[in-house]
């Protein structure tokens, strides 16, 4: 029973991080209508950059590394949107080309990481060791810290989207691009910004999870897929929905790992995705506007 609670808690802590990834994914999908296949690759890249900044080469303290990491990731995201996606957006059939270009980028990132850092997974030390006792159950202090940090990030995002003018603009674009443009919102700027923000979110998630999963070149596909299931289940553009869905799926995963073993994780997520899509076939949105957007 003790062990089950430890697994359960691990699932919850990971789920909180997945919800950060999911919020980033849904921001970009919601505003720019782009499914970014490179999102997992960017997660891994974020983890590698933080590894290089800290234990890998530069030996910077973690707080300084995070301060450097955020602008680097933001810049990467803005650059991808500006130079890779924006030129495609006006072309015919742009959704397919945009998807292909991000899939191409995903393979570029995977292989560049493989060449730069090798196939052997890199360990990342946790910034807190030891265990904390909650209701008499010993849980890893690092996982507890990760849970708290992830929840704080989601709360900050929620505040940003609901309480600031810029956040309103992001939500306006997500609801209706044409309408947003008419009231004077610079839509391209919002696209760039959300793309940058999403890369920051996924990269930071990579940093948070790397002490738990290690960093490997192809390790980003699983979080990417999980984030999408969360987005589908939680509802697009809803940060609270994403958190709820992430926790639900995190518990499912914990139960699966406990009962069946870790190799069942991917098949079970696939089945979950299938079920979710069956229950909500028009996707989270159900607004049937894709035709107009395309």
């Amino acid at each position: 029973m003790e062990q089950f609670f430890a697994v359960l808690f691990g699932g919850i802590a990971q789920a909180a991080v997945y919800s950060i990834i999911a919020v980033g994914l849904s921001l970009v999908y919601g505003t720019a209508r782009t499914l970014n296949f490179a999102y997992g690759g960017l997660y891994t890249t974020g983890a590698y950059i933080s590894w290089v900044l800290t234990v890998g080469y530069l030996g910077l303290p973690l707080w300084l590394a995070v301060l450097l990491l955020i602008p680097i990731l933001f810049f990467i995201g803005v650059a991808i949107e500006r130079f890779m996606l924006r030129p495609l957006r006006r072309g015919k059939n742009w959704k397919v080309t945009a998807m292909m270009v991000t899939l191409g980028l995903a393979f570029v990132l995977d292989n560049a990481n493989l060449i730069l850092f090798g196939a052997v997974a890199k360990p990342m030390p946790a910034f807190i060791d030891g265990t904390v006792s909650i209701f008499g159950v010993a849980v890893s202090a690092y996982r507890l810290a990760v849970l708290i940090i992830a929840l704080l990030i989601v709360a900050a995002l929620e505040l940003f989207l609901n309480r600031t003018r810029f956040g309103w603009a992001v939500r306006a674009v997500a609801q209706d691009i044409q309408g947003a443009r008419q009231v004077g919102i610079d839509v391209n700027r919002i696209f760039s910004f959300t793309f940058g923000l999403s890369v920051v979110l996924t990269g930071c998630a990579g940093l948070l999870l790397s002490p738990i999963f290690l960093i490997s070149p192809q390790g980003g596909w699983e979080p990417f897929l999980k984030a999408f299931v969360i987005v589908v289940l939680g509802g697009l553009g809803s940060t609270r929905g994403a958190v709820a869905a992430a926790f639900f799926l995190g518990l499912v995963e914990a139960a699966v790992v406990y009962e069946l073993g870790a190799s069942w994780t991917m098949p079970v997520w696939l089945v979950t995705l299938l079920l979710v899509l069956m229950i909500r076939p028009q996707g989270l949105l159900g607004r049937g506007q894709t035709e107009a957007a395309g």
Partner: protein
Amino acid sequence: MTETHATMTSASGATKSPARGSDLIYWSVAAALAVAGMLITDSYVQHVLILCFLWCMVAAAWDLTLGYAGIFNYAQIALFAAGAYATAMLTLKLGVPPLAAITAATAITALLGLAIALPCLRLQGEYVALFTFSVHLAMPPLIQLAKGWGTGGTMGLLGVPPIKIFGVTLGPMNKIGWYYLALAAAAVSVYVIYFIVLRSRTGRAFVALRDSANFARSLGINEFKYRLLAFTLSALITGFAGALYAHYTSVVTPKILGNEFILLAIVMLAIGGIGRFPGAVLGAFVVTILNELLRDAGTYRLLILGILVVLTLLLLPQGLASLKDRLLRPSGKRKTRNTGE
């Protein structure tokens, strides 16, 4: 069913369906390749061309769903692997004769395609992409878990038996035999896709649904039925290619589902151009040969291929197939590339 020919004129847009006279050109090219088969003696060149032919089938079948029917299908390599695994397991575990196994594997893959398409084609575009790609991602662990059923796990299946037709044994060493078999299979598959299906009423329905789903529906085109048909047909041809590949290489491993194959297929469509005959077929040739030339680049090969995808899509969004149009009317370049705002 009340769809009309008006659908085509109004909605086919950028799609160039092959002109009537091009039948002759198509079969001339196929015949020229058949003649070339007699002249080529280098077994490595033969090998590369056999791979080109098999990849043509995969690229053309993918073009049918992704390019013409507008279905965001990313399970293409998963279906290819399904065809390869089906025939390998049937011959090795059940002792089915190769020709029967290939037929069965083709049918099984078509059914699998149907099974994938049934739940996901009711979804909106991007969800189809995600669902099909997650099928791809889930396959290697599933193969590992189903080891007990004879999938061979991570080791894969070795010694898939050679095909025997008319007393000729097509082993991996019989390059000439394989050259003609692969050429025939590719020529017929590509012909069926581009010249029969896509020229028919069914093919026009695919394109109409892609370009303007609401309008096509309003003309009475059954969206679900046609998309299901496109997906299943594409899976059938892909499974056939996968089964042939398994017998040609005599080895089936989960490596098929690794980075390389899906990346190659994407590069083919990106370079060739989707939804424009002969883009995908041309892409299959260019990329297969390029991939062989890059063998020496080692680990950098996949990186180079990835960069190639990104650059082609940015610089030549419609692929090689659009080059012809561009060269013919250099003044009309507005349509092909937009330099942003």
